[in-house]
């Protein structure tokens, strides 16, 4: 079983039973009198709490403190929750009995968690996380990555359909920042000079947000999916999580880009494993910056060499490139998607990037390195950025994942039926289901593009000013360095809100952040800060 619950306190069930007897006597007695089943109690889940003043960045989970255990009570009526508290120097004792929708919601969350992660190869511990100061509570699966199913809304007090809450961590940080700001305003009744309106240019806004060193701890990986990003296990346009998954896509079609055609796979099972998980490697990868310096001229040259070699390099499921110096058409004639992308990134970086093999492993690696999450739609822009997109095995009928590089709204990839190739990135079909990250600057772009009010910033052609207009919404990609990388997204969002942006969303972590906000001030032209690698007006 992939989800486990640790053993609870020895007397936990007795404590719960006594509380039910005290507080729900009618229910228990009625069940017995009617010959029905007495209430039953579940295995307990450890219950953790994070305080508001410990919630300053996305690493706040390390500050979660166990405060007790939570049991679900079922039978003889609606579900209920019994909490048993645990104090460091005392026996466990009864804490609370909670009736009503909250208990039902926890039961639903547990069901959904079991559906989605009950057979997962990784092991998770089922926990409860409570952050009462910002009205958030969740079933927390703690494992190689942390998974949340919200049982309290947290956004607007509304209870959405039960889904995996991929933005839980970021929303918590943002809500905490907003709460602290609100509390400070209300208590102090002192105008914050930073909130008295925009006096300068946009660069000052960004600089103010970046000149932060509130913590010396490195940010962990962001948890939020960008707008338009399909949720894990709930692909965009697909059924809600917990419901039957999306209909299988036609095998071998362009909807399944890594599925091999005849002759492209000699051992489908082994090839699928190699394509998804790659060849075994040893040793830990060195830390890399959150935005690569990638020589796209080298990458494109490699693609060109593969496409024009004799014989041409074609697609081969599970086929890899022997070495960094391997010559297309001579040293290898077939390569799969992850093998191609791995070689491309290795050739385009100096020192050579220790990029792993296998699209699933590559996806995890990119996520863990903290590369900014983007969206399939954003990758349609020619904004001077190189992105990497992953299609997960579970989202394809062949169960073979796919990985591509995207630059200038074109892919650089190796796909079934062709091999190394470059195609339009349309954000439709299988592309709409991908997970996209900002990987690097496209150093071969000279600046400018066809999109109005979009600035591709590279080299000498980089514009120096930008105008924000009242009521318009913008998305900026920021690259941070040094201590700036430690600034939390919530803090950046709070500062931007304070300066006059509304509905601010900041995603990403470490050195790369993507900020969206609507400008509420007057039209203003200002100097672009060097931290901004792209800024684009987006539809509202």
């Amino acid at each position, binding site marked *: 079983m992939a989800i486990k619950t640790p053993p609870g306190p020895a007397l936990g069930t007795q404590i719960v039973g006594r509380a039910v007897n005290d507080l729900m006597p009618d229910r228990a007695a009625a069940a017995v009198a009617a010959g029905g089943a007495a209430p039953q109690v579940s295995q307990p889940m450890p219950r953790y709490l994070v305080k508001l003043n410990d919630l300053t960045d996305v690493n706040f989970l390390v500050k979660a403190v166990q405060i007790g255990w939570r049991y679900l009570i*079922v039978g003889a009526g609606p579900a209920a929750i019994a909490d048993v508290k645990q104090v460091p120097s005392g026996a466990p004792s009864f*804490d609370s009995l909670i009736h009503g929708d909250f208990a039902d919601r926890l039961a639903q969350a547990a069901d959904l*968690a079991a559906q989605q992660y009950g057979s997962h190869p990784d092991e998770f511990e089922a926990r409860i996380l409570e952050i009462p100061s910002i009205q958030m509570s969740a079933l927390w699966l703690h494992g190689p990555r942390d998974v949340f199913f919200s049982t309290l809304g947290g956004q607007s007090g509304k209870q959405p359909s039960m889904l995996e809450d991929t933005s839980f961590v970021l929303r918590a940080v943002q809500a905490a920042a907003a709460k602290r700001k609100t509390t400070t305003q209300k208590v102090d009744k002192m105008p914050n000079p930073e909130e008295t309106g925009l006096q300068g240019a946009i660069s000052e806004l960004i600089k103010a947000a970046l000149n932060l060193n509130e913590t010396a701890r490195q940010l962990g990986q962001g948890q939020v999916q960008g707008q338009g990003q399909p949720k894990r296990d709930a692909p965009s346009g697909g059924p809600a999580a917990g419901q039957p998954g999306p209909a299988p896509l036609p095998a071998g079609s362009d909807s399944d880009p890594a599925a091999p055609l005849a002759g492209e796979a000699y051992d489908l099972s082994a090839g699928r494993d190699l394509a998804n998980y790659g060849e075994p490697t040893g040793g830990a990868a060195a830390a890399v910056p959150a935005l690569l310096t990638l020589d796209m001229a080298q990458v494109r040259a490699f693609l060109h060499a593969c496409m024009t070699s004799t014989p041409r390099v074609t697609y081969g499921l599970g086929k890899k490139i022997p070495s960094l110096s391997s010559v297309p058409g001579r040293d290898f004639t077939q390569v799969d998607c992850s093998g191609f992308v791995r070689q491309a990134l290795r050739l385009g970086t100096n020192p050579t990037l220790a990029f792993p093999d296998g699209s699933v492993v590559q996806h995890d690696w990119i996520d863990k390195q903290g590369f900014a999450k983007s969206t399939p739609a954003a990758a349609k822009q020619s904004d001077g950025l190189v992105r990497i997109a992953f299609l997960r095995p579970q989202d394809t009928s062949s169960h073979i994942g796919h990985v591509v590089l995207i630059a200038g709204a074109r892919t650089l990839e190796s796909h079934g039926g062709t091999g190394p190739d470059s195609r339009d990135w349309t954000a439709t079909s299988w592309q709409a289901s991908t997970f996209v990250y900002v990987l690097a600057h496209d150093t071969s772009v000279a600046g400018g593009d066809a999109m109005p009010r979009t600035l591709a910033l590279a080299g000498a052609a980089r514009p120096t000013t930008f105008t924000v207009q009242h009521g318009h919404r913008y998305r900026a990609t920021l690259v941070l360095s040094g201590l700036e990388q430690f600034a939390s997204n919530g803090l950046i969002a709070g500062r931007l809100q304070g300066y006059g942006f509304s509905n601010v969303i900041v995603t990403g972590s470490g050195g790369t952040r993507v900020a969206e906000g609507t400008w509420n001030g007057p039209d203003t032209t200002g100097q672009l800060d060097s931290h901004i690698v792209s800024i684009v007006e987006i539809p509202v």
Partner: protein
Amino acid sequence: MALAGFLNPLQELAPPMQMAEAADGGGASSSGSLQGFAVSQQQESEWCWAAVSSSVANFYGPTQWTQCGVASAELAPLNCCGSDAGGACNQPWYLDRALTRVGHFDHISASSAPFAGVQAEIGGRRPLGCRIAWAGGGAHFVALGGWLIAADGSLYVNVCDPLYGPVSKKYDDFVSAYITAGDDWTHSYFTIGTMLVAGGGAAPNPNSPISA
């Protein structure tokens, strides 16, 4: 009701008689509650004050007060039932002012109430508003709708929480450890069925705190 596999095996709780025999002490339990009183779930993340005040109003008699209606009245000129819903309207506010707005504020006490005081309010069919200051920052409004003294003498209160719903809790824990140690019951908001108002209602208490 079947539960997720990882929460199994389920254990059957002992029937009430066995539990009572196993319990320390003896005697009968006693309790009091406000039949018909419930606090609706707060419709915005910061609207505990609106949920408690509108629920109190609806307990005392049929009214038109809704959460967004209370918020609109308190935060005028914002339109919290319309264009400003979920935005500027979603903010912490004062429960005494909201209770005054709906016509059921009696007085405020900057402390918790003794258990006997809770019994007196419930006995008088008056919900009692409470402000909980979270350990570590922030605060929250709830209301008490009942009490219970168990057979072993343990004291419980029925908390009507706009976030969690109905919660039964030991009185001592509610005073100082609602969710965790240090969550303090800092203020009590006494309500009244019909508020006698003169000149537009009670003046705002400059020392009353806000919560969400």
